[in-house]
């Protein structure tokens, strides 16, 4: 895939060396790189063109030209600009109406509407303490109604039954009636997926919208969408007054340029992002992170959050305390770290969120290999006695032979593990002294992540 935009720009800058300053002429190459990066990230061309005008204006401004590292400065400008477009009014859902607050979902086939309804129901119920009713107006796809029923049950929301021989408008009106009589706060209306050129179906949802007058009309869009995101978003926006966007399948490895296109065309804020099929996977939208992702700069912040969610807080605090003291990081901690890494979706899952430089270094390893290597390392550590784990210096030749035999590996592998552990220990010491900056440099010294895992 695409290399890091920063790297590519750095290369362009190299060719510019010797020229005293950036001018309109020689900045063109850099802007071209930016353009390509955006296109590869599936940002729609009209949006890219628009953006390039704005970026160029800024790029010629003092902050880039005067900078010692124009490449980085330019990336900064681009990132800011992207975040600006996608962000702005970071809006939450609007409930300022007489209950029930009706939320209508619309989108293409397979965008993830029904799953999102389930996630939203769970979110509203648990985070906002709302009483939620769901109803499906998808009378076309077999078992679509059953799917919503199952999802609603999982989310703990009430489900209003409908059947495939009813009209969508009738179903929705009956559901509203039910919600009013039972004093429910929110009604989530799921609809069938439709393509924008199908006038009949677009008409149907227009009528549905007119009949139920929802306070929120959410456009559910797949983050993997390509160039056509603009047309789709425009068509839906013309048919319905969209009040917000839900970006789904963000856990994939697409760059998600569609987010930018959709926002640009509809002007509707991106209110939520969906990850995974579990009903907990609904997050708020963070424009800066999305901008980094589109530019292939990784999503460190989400990584940190994910880590926070997966990691046992007490264990983390203990470790932090150990680190602060600058010693005491032993093989037990090492093992625990690996367990936690696995909880977060394995090393490969981590790598996806890393900036491209790291990801590239990691790509040299075989996919899946890190997991295997990790299992091996765990096996080796499990073959040590508790005393050995907390004091690895004990381990000399005879113990090594015993450990190797116990784990079913060669003695060399035990040696390698101990070496790596030592390096890691050093790194941890640096961390406690010099903070994250030094840690990163330490990582660089290890030739990316390669040195960290044996047999990679």
């Amino acid at each position, binding site marked *: *895939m695409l290399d890091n935009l920063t790297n590519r720009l750095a290369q362009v800058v190299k060719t510019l060396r010797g020229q005293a300053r950036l001018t309109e002429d020689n900045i063109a190459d850099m802007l071209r790189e930016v353009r*390509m990066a955006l*296109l*590869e*990230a*599936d940002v*729609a061309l009209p949006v890219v063109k628009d953006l390039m005008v704005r970026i160029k204006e800024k790029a010629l401004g003092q902050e880039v030209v005067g900078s010692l590292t124009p490449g980085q400065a330019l990336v900064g400008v681009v990132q800011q600009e992207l975040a600006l477009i996608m962000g702005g009014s970071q809006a939450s859902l609007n409930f300022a109406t007489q209950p029930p607050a009706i939320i209508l979902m619309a989108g*293409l*086939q*397979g*965008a*993830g509407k*029904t*799953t999102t309804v*389930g996630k939203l129901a769970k979110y509203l119920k648990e985070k906002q303490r709302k009483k939620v009713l769901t109803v499906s107006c998808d*009378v*076309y*796809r*077999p*078992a*679509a109604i*059953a*799917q*919503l*029923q*199952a999802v609603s049950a*999982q989310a703990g929301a009430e489900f209003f039954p409908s059947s495939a021989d009813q009209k969508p408008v009738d179903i929705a009106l009956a559901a509203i009636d039910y919600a009013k009589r039972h004093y429910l706060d929110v009604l989530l209306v799921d609809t*069938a*997926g*439709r*393509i*924008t*050129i*199908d006038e009949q*179906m677009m008409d149907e949802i227009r009528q549905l919208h007119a009949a139920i007058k929802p306070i929120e009309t959410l456009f559910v869009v*797949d983050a*993997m*969408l*390509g*160039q*056509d*995101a603009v*047309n*789709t978003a425009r*068509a839906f926006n013309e048919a319905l007054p969209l009040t917000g966007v839900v970006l789904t*399948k963000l*856990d*994939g*490895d697409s*760059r998600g*340029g*569609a987010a930018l296109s959709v926002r640009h065309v509809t002007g509707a804020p991106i209110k939520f992002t969906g990850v*995974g*099929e579990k009903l907990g996977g609904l997050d708020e939208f963070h424009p800066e992170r999305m901008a980094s992702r589109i530019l292939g700069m990784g999503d460190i912040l989400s990584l940190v959050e994910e880590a926070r969610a997966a990691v046992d807080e007490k264990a983390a605090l203990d470790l932090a305390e150990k680190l602060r003291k600058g010693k005491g990081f032993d093989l037990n901690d090492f093992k625990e770290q690996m367990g936690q890494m696995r909880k977060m*979706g*394995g090393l*490969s*899952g981590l790598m996806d969120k890393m900036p491209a430089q790291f990801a590239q270094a990691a790509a040299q390893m075989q*996919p*899946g290999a890190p997991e295997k290597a990790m299992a091996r390392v765990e096996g080796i550590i499990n073959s040590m006695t508790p005393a050995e784990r907390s004091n690895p210096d004990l381990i000399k030749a005879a113990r090594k032979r015993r450990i190797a035999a116990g784990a079913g590996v060669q003695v060399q592998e035990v040696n390698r593990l101990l070496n790596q552990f030592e390096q890691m220990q050093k790194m941890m010491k640096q961390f406690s002294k010099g903070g994250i900056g030094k840690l990163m440099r330490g990582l660089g010294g290890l030739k990316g992540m390669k040195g960290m895992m044996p047999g990679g």
Partner: protein
Amino acid sequence: MFSFFKKSETPAETVATPVEAPKASWLSRLKAGLARTSSSLGSVFSLRKIDEELLEDLEATLLMADCGVEATQTLLAELRRRWKHDKLETGEQLRAALAEHLVKLLTPLQQPLVIDGHKPYIIMLSGVNGAGKTTSIGKLARHFQSQGKSVLLAAGDTFRAAAREQLVEWGNRNNVSVIAQDGGDPAAVAFDAISAAKARGIDVVMVDTAGRLPTQLHLMEEIAKVRRVIQKAEPSGPHEVLLVLDGNVGQNALAQLKAFDKAVGITGLIITKLDGTAKGGVIAAIARTHPKPLRFIGVGEGIEDLQPFMATEYVDALLATGNTGAAEAV
């Protein structure tokens, strides 16, 4: 997904029609489906003389069709060379040259699926969430039935709510047996289905799987296991491993193809939802960087709209060089 059922009358009528009639209408449907692209390409190619501006417009059009930066640049470089070398003058000539290159690029993908040599012939489907796997299985089942083959489906999507019901209900409507289990392991469902097919002397077994994103490593391992278990049930199988791609998806389609190929060894592709407004230029990107036989493309909701891929037909429809006039009519 599956909204083609809203026109539940249409499939019935087409199944009855002999092979000849749909042929022409298929082409027109393909054109209709791709009308947006072809009209925008058409406007580029009007009677203008070739100049840098025209080429730039063409670049934009190709990019917007999701061809991807690399495939677009290759095509353009080639066109530029032809322009100078063959002294092309009009836009029309340029269009012919582009068509020629596209056909050359896409022809290697044109390998229809031949159900032959094995009984049961085991087809496994894979893809990301919402690509249209279950829908495609339905359409394929009808396709094979119309060729007089018996079909058995394995509801291997044991994860998504009501995915099993979707397939079972579809099977009931269309007289196709569906093997399903309550919850459990997709690989076990596949194994059962293959054993059942052997016992009943079924011609084609199609194994559905749950949608998964390539980043979900454990799920990618699960699907690799499904494949291994199929192999256990039938050592020669699976005879075809299809990846279903959503035609609306952008450059991520390539990443999907690579990941699934690594996990289960993709032998063919289905590209769905090409009828929306998307253009499926990603086919060109695939042909350029990771060629795999493109077995079927879907350009509509009707059952007859899932059809074998033909490079020249597709390019004709895309660039509207054919003279059927159907594209203009739409």
